[in-house]
C-alpha cells in the first residue's frame, strides 16, 4: 500500500545535471535566485528563460516530471497574476469598465512576477529532481561546515537528516503493518465523516510513535557501541568530488551574472 512511495522527487539518472556536485548545484541556485530578482526587463527575463530551458535539456528529464513540480504553486502564480492585473496601475489603459481598469504596468508586473515564481520553482526542482536526498544532505553539511565554528551544530543537523531519510522506508513499512493489523481488528479507515476518519488514525499513530521511540533507543545504543561520540574528531567518507562539470556550472554562473548585470535596466 505504501510500498512505492519515493522519497522526495529524486529521479535517478546519469545526466550532466545528475553528476554535477550537489554543492555546486546548491550554490548555483542561490546565485540564480538572486539574478531572478535582479532581472527587470524583457531581455534579462529572456536570458533566464533560455537558460532554464538549457538546464531542462541537460537534465534529460521528461517534461512531465518537470511540469509536475509546478503543480503545487500554479494557484499561487495565477493568484498573483490576477491581483497584479487588477490592482497595479500605471501606463496605458488597456481596458476600462466604470472605475475598474486594466493598465500597462499591471500586465507587465503580472508577467514578470509569475515568471519570477515559475523560474525559481523550476530551477530549484532541478536540484531535487537530479540529486538524491543523501547527496543533498552531504552537500549541505559540507557547505554549512564553516558555520560549525560559530556554534551551529552542523554535524548533528546533517546526522539527524540522514537518519530521518534512512528510517522513512522502515517506518513506512511499519505503518503498513499497523494499518493491516488494525484493519484485521475491525478498524475502518476509508468511510465515515472526516472527523470520524481523523479519529480512526489514532490507533495507527500511537503504536507507530511507541515503536519509533523504541527504535530510537536501540539505534542510540548501536551507535554508541560503534564508538559514536559526537562530531568531534570525526572524519567523513569522502564521496563528493568536484569535476569538470562543476567548472562548467561555475562558468555558467559567472557568465549569467555579467549578462544580467549588463542588460538589466
Amino acid at each position, binding site marked *: 500500500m505504501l510500498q512505492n512511495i519515493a522519497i522526495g522527487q529524486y529521479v535517478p539518472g546519469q545526466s550532466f545535471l545528475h553528476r554535477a556536485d550537489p554543492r555546486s548545484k546548491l550554490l548555483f541556485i542561490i546565485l540564480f535566485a538572486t539574478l531572478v530578482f535582479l532581472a527587470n526587463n524583457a531581455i534579462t527575463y529572456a536570458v533566464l528563460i533560455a537558460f532554464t530551458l538549457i538546464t531542462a535539456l541537460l537534465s534529460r528529464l521528461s517534461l512531465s516530471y518537470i511540469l509536475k513540480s509546478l503543480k503545487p504553486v500554479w494557484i499561487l502564480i495565477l493568484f498573483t497574476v490576477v491581483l497584479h492585473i487588477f490592482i497595479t496601475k500605471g501606463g496605458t489603459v488597456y481596458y476600462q469598465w466604470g472605475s475598474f481598469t486594466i493598465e500597462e504596468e499591471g500586465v507587465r508586473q503580472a508577467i514578470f512576477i509569475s515568471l519570477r515564481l515559475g523560474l525559481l520553482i523550476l530551477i530549484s526542482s532541478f536540484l531535487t529532481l537530479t540529486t538524491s*536526498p*543523501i547527496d543533498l544532505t552531504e552537500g549541505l553539511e559540507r557547505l554549512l561546515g564553516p558555520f560549525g565554528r560559530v556554534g551551529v551544530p552542523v554535524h548533528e543537523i546533517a546526522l539527524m537528516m*540522514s*537518519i530521518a*531519510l*534512512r528510517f522513512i*522506508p*522502515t517506518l513506512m*513499512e511499519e505503518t503498513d503493518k499497523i494499518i493491516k493489523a488494525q484493519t484485521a481488528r475491525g478498524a475502518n479507515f476509508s468511510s465515515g465523516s472526516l472527523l470520524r476518519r481523523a479519529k480512526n488514525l489514532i490507533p495507527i499513530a500511537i503504536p507507530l510513535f511507541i515503536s519509533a521511540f*523504541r*527504535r530510537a533507543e*536501540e*539505534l542510540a*545504543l*548501536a*551507535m*554508541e*557501541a*560503534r*564508538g*559514536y*561520540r559526537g562530531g568531534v*574528531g*570525526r*572524519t*567523513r*567518507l*569522502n564521496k563528493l568530488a568536484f569535476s569538470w562539470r562543476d567548472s562548467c556550472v561555475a562558468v555558467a554562473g559567472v557568465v549569467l551574472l555579467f549578462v544580467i548585470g549588463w542588460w538589466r535596466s
Partner: protein
Amino acid sequence: MKEESLLAFRDVSFSYDGEEGQRIPVLKSVDLTIEKGSFVSVLGHNGSGKSTLAKLMNALLLPEKGTIIVSGFDTKNEEMLWEIRRHVGMVFQNPDNQIVGATVEDDVAFGLENMGVDPGEMRKRIDEALHSVGMEKYLMAQPHRLSGGQKQRVAIAGIMAMRPSLIILDEATAMLDPQGRQEVMDLARRLNREEGITIINITHFPEEAVFSDHVTVMNAGEVLLEGSPHDVFSQVERLQSVGLDVPFAVRVRHALAAKGIELPFVLHQEELVEHVCRLLLTK
C-alpha cells in the same frame, strides 16, 4: 589471568532499578573467561542476564561489583572506552535498528568515521569488510531493500571494518528466518576460523551452540553450566529443569536412552542418523 584470555569477568554483579525503586539483580557474581580466537556460545532464556552480559563486555554498562578486563583494559577506565569499543564489536537483535547509514557504504563507514580514520584508508577498509561478509555487490544499496540476513551481514561488515578482536552477536539471529540465521552463523564461523576473530554468540537456540568451542549456560543471573558442547549438552535433565532446550540430536538420543536404547553421545544430526542406521543394521 592466563596470557591468552581476551576477556575476563571477575566476580561481576549487576542490577537494574525495578519499578518500585527496588534493585532487581540481573547478574550475581559471575566469573567468566573468554580465550582469544575461540567461538563461545552463551545460552539462556529471556531474563537470564545474557544480554546484560553482552552490554557489560563493551562498556555500554559498567559492573556494579567486580571487574571486567577486555584485552588488558578495565572497562571502568574511561580513557580506554573507545579503544574497548573498537576491539569489541556488537551485533544486535533487530537488524533495522542498528543500521545508521542511508546506504550500505555509509553504514560500514559509520564506525570508521567515529574513529577518525582517514578517508582514503576508509574506502579501502569498507571494500575489505564488505568482501569479507560477501556483500561487496551491495555497496550502494539502501538497507531497507536487503533481507534480514543481509542486514545483519552489513552490520557485521561495519564492525569488521573497525578491525575488532571480538564480535558479540547479541541474539543476532533471533529475528531472522532460517535462511538468514544460517547465513549469519556461517559467516560468524568463517570469520572465527579464517580471520581469527573471537566470537561470542548469545542465543537461545541450542542448535547454534553445537559448533562452538565453549558453551556457557546462564540461568537467573548465574552461570549454570560451562564447558565444551559435549559436556554441557550431556546434562540434559539439568538443562531441561531450568526450561532450556537441547539440540535435536541430543534430545532424540536422550529419549531413546529412556527407552533402553543406548547410543554414543551425539551433537549433530548427521552423527545421530549414522548411529541409528548402524544400530538398525547390526540388530
